[in-house]
């Protein structure tokens, strides 16, 4: 907290200096001629090639980075729809914002803006004193809003945009009779602007490949920040973009390398795995309290955290091999998880490392209650859901949906004495040819985890019958989570899968070119399957910065940042 607050003050200081330099403002009102002059079109034509809605975490992180962690973000975020078999990061490329969504974003924006300019905080963000606190002050508004806008829009505001937001602040100040209210409303307008709510990716002509396009410097800065740190670009990245350094491969490599070695990379890794492992399922996780008395909301909140701690501890703190995620005995425990795992937890608060013993069968993330409970029903385990998740989520092998006209009469109820365990019941699927095609792919994998119930607690029997944890995957027999973890760690599908997900996560579209994935996987292997190395590869992959099929249309030679706004500002006066 201390460092963060300190950094913020330093940044605010830097903002102040920068704004004074670039705008050279005095306290006088800009004359019409000045506003007229301030509407140049950018030299090079840019084309918008993607608009990706920022996620809830990216929104929160951005606000905390710019305004400090004590600024409360209160409100409900419109969820981004996950396309089947894809990442939410890909869904974000399709995501529109509904009226309800805007309503919520607007309410959040006003809450944030009111805090930023309240008496406690305004000193950090307003580098000047308004001539009259009860009226507008264009110079002071501009000096305040332009630097903030640069962080929010992830690029410097154009002159016309600056004039526009300054003018909004002035008008709102006049109407509300308060300079601060004016700033507040203008900042709130920035926070609902598509320039903030969407990561807008722009392309420019690629001098190295005539006729082709590449992502421009600011897009690169934002993509690096969002992919690696799950937040908007900071001062250093914006500066690198402004100086045109991110289109230079060597400098891009250096920046990306610094970023994956920063402690902030953990935030990025967490966000990536939460997306890849479908952690949104935890949002609505509910278990039957009678069937599972050990389950409650505190447990539900601790489960994803346990898995994420296991991941970041192994892959970042210990710089481990990605494949060990399926075999590691090391995890993290907190008090509320003790009863579920039946292990003593010494610390009354916080997390402590814990090593499972060999016979516990809690190998890797698949042996953890988080995975086991989200891929279960509310009142019992599901070998089918678990097997399907292993195939689809960890190996990137989509399993077909059940046919629409499937006849389920073959499947028996759980009270049938002849079929006491899930294995017996699922046998019914395996004997029905319509079902067996897909269930053969999923069930023999998931059945190996049957000793863990619907919340991932250990059990030896079901309906008083001993449970077998024998499993089969792609023709190989194994036992339990340990056997499964070992096979997954040896399977090329798992490392290729995470490589393709990392690329999809970066570009916001499912990876299509298998040769690129194979090459990435090779490099990943050469690094000892280091997640840092994988993300560094993705971040510096020349293919990821090229824009496929995009050419420069004639009509794109238009100012991006809206001469009409400047025109409006000018003509108003």
């Amino acid at each position, binding site marked *: 907290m201390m460092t963060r607050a300190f950094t913020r003050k330093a940044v605010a200081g830097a903002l102040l200096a920068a704004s004074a330099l670039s705008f050279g403002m005095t306290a006088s009102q800009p004359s019409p001629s000045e506003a007229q002059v301030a509407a140049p079109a950018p030299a090079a034509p840019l084309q918008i090639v993607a*608009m990706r809605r920022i996620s809830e975490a990216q929104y929160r992180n951005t606000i905390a980075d710019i305004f400090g962690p004590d600024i409360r973000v209160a409100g409900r975020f419109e969820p981004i729809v996950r396309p089947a078999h894809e990442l939410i990061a890909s869904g974000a490329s399709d995501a529109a*914002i509904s009226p*309800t969504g*805007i309503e919520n974003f607007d309410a959040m924006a006003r809450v944030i803006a009111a805090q930023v300019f309240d008496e406690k905080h305004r000193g950090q963000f307003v580098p000047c004193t308004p001539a009259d606190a009860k009226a507008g002050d264009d110079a002071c508004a501009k000096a305040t809003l332009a630097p903030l806008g640069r962080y929010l829009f992830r690029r410097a505001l154009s002159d016309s945009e600056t004039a526009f937001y300054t003018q909004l602040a002035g008008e709102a100040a006049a*109407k509300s009779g308060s300079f601060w209210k004016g700033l507040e*409303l203008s900042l709130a307008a920035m926070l609902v602007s598509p320039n903030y709510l969407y990561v807008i990716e722009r392309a420019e002509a690629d001098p190295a490949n005539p006729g082709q396009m590449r992502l421009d410097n600011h897009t690169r800065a934002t993509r690096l920040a969002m992919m690696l740190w799950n937040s908007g670009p900071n001062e250093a990245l914006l500066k690198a973009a402004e100086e045109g350094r991110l289109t230079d491969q060597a400098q891009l490599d250096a920046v990306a390398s610094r970023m994956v070695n920063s402690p902030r990379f953990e935030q990025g890794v967490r966000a990536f795995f939460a997306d890849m492992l479908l952690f949104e399922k935890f949002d609505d996780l509910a278990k039957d309290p009678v069937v599972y008395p050990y389950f409650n909301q505190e447990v539900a909140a601790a489960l994803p955290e346990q898995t994420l701690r296991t991941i970041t501890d192994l892959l970042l703190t210990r710089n481990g091999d990605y494949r060990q995620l399926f075999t590691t005995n090391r995890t993290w425990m907190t008090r509320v998880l003790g009863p579920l795992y039946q292990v003593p937890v010494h610390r009354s608060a916080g997390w402590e490392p814990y090593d499972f013993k060999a016979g516990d069968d809690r190998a890797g993330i698949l042996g953890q209650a988080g995975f086991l409970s989200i891929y279960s029903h509310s009142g019992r385990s599901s070998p089918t859901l678990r097997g399907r998740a292993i195939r689809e989520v960890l190996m990137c092998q989509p399993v077909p949906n059940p046919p*629409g006209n499937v006849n389920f009469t073959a499947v028996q109820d759980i009270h049938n004495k002849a079929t006491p365990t899930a294995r017996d019941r699922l046998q019914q699927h395996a004997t029905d040819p319509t079902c067996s095609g897909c269930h053969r792919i999923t069930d023999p994998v998931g059945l190996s985890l049957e000793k863990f119930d619907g919340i991932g607690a250990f059990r030896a029997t079901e309906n008083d019958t001993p449970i077998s944890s024998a499993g089969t995957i792609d023709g190989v027999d194994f036992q339990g989570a340990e056997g499964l973890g070992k096979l997954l760690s040896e399977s090329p599908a798992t490392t290729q899968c995470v490589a393709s997900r990392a690329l999809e996560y970066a570009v916001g579209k499912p990876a299509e070119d298998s040769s690129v994935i194979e090459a990435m996987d090779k490099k990943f292997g050469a690094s000892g399957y280091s997640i840092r190395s994988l993300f560094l590869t993705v971040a510096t992959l020349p293919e990821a910065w090229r824009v496929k099929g995009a050419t420069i249309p004639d009509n794109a030679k238009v100012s991006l940042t*809206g*001469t009409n706004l400047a025109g409006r500002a000018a003509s108003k006066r």
Partner: protein
Amino acid sequence: MAYDLSRRTALKGMLNGAGVVVGVPLLNAFLDGNGEAMAATGAAVPVRFGTWFWGLGVNPNRWFPTKVGANYDLKPELLPIKAFQSKINVYGNFNVPLDGAPNLPHATGGPAIRTGRALTAERGLPGESFDVTIGDLIGKRSRFSSLEMSASGDARNSLSGRGGGNLNPSEVSAGGLYQRVFGTGFQDPNNATFTPDPVTMARRSVLSGVTEQRQSLMSTVGAEDKQKLDQYFTSIRQLENQLDVQLTKPEPMQACVVPHKIPELPVNAEIETVMKNHEFMTDLLVMALACDQTRVFNMMFNNGASSLTRIGSTITHHQLTHEEVLDNRLGYQPEATYFLTRIMEAWVYFVSALDKVKEGNRTLLDNTLVLAHSETEFAKFHTIDNIPIMTAGGAGGRVKTGLFVDGIGTPVSRVGLSIQQAFGVPVDRWGTKSMETNKTITEIMA
């Protein structure tokens, strides 16, 4: 240097004239005519449209009537609607032809009814849902263009949206719904005094500023992103409308009684919790309609692959429909059917809550049309032909009620087409491929 002066300038003019109560012209557009006049003011009563969804269908032979037309017979599972039969239409034998697209279990049926299109991938909605189309016509001037609710939780549980990545998210708690409708920004239409809030005025002008960024962005985007931006600005316009409403003295609404604050309740899929949430949400919605805060709504009782449970059960409603043995003596699955009984109970609660509110000589239900439907006919087999559908209410006299309509295997999009036409959407053909139809269900059109 062209830019759109119209709204913003008009508003500024208004604001500069400080303290002026904002505009009569707006109010004229506010009301859509055709309905009855309110006794108090002579203004027309608004008509409303909404949907009520439940997952996992019915036991067809125990639910669908046999006798076509008025005074249809009520089988055991439909018997609960008896008291409201004269206000409810039932629709049977309407099909969902997919033209070779896969029947994605529990995912295909709902969107087919709402969009007239077959789902080709599990990626949001295949097109604009027609509640949104109707909302564009009748919901533009109310404070909320529509209200979406899911009584069983999960904001993603929604069948409403403009297609693709746009899904109107559902409110999942009654407390949240209360806050949204009756919290900050709510104006009691029956208050005698009205003073526009200066900060709202300032916000309104700021927002119209945001709208002016449209051109500059539009000129440089590709088609897909253009669509997204269009939707974004449509949403912004709705927010502007909301503020316009707040800046306008509301028409008195005879039946509007501002409800009490709702306590925070648990949200999960356990049936008793869902029933309770649904009741609270329904009561709030009814007042949101009576106070004219919205004219379009979408209630999801549960989700398609219903995750409803009963305390102590190891198995969900969805699993039951597939795994419970058909009781040979009864001829249906008793445990799964328990949930259907509760669902019909909830539906009757919903209809009766609307019918209790008097508006002129009619009730709120009479001035509303609620389309209720499931996503499958018989869940055990995922069948999507003959999905159970009802409408309740007469849309202010535009739709005849109390009928069982036999679709004789024609596409289900006829229902969507007819309802849109009843609300005055200028459409003579709706749906795609085999679901494209121009055949209005004439039996129900008043």
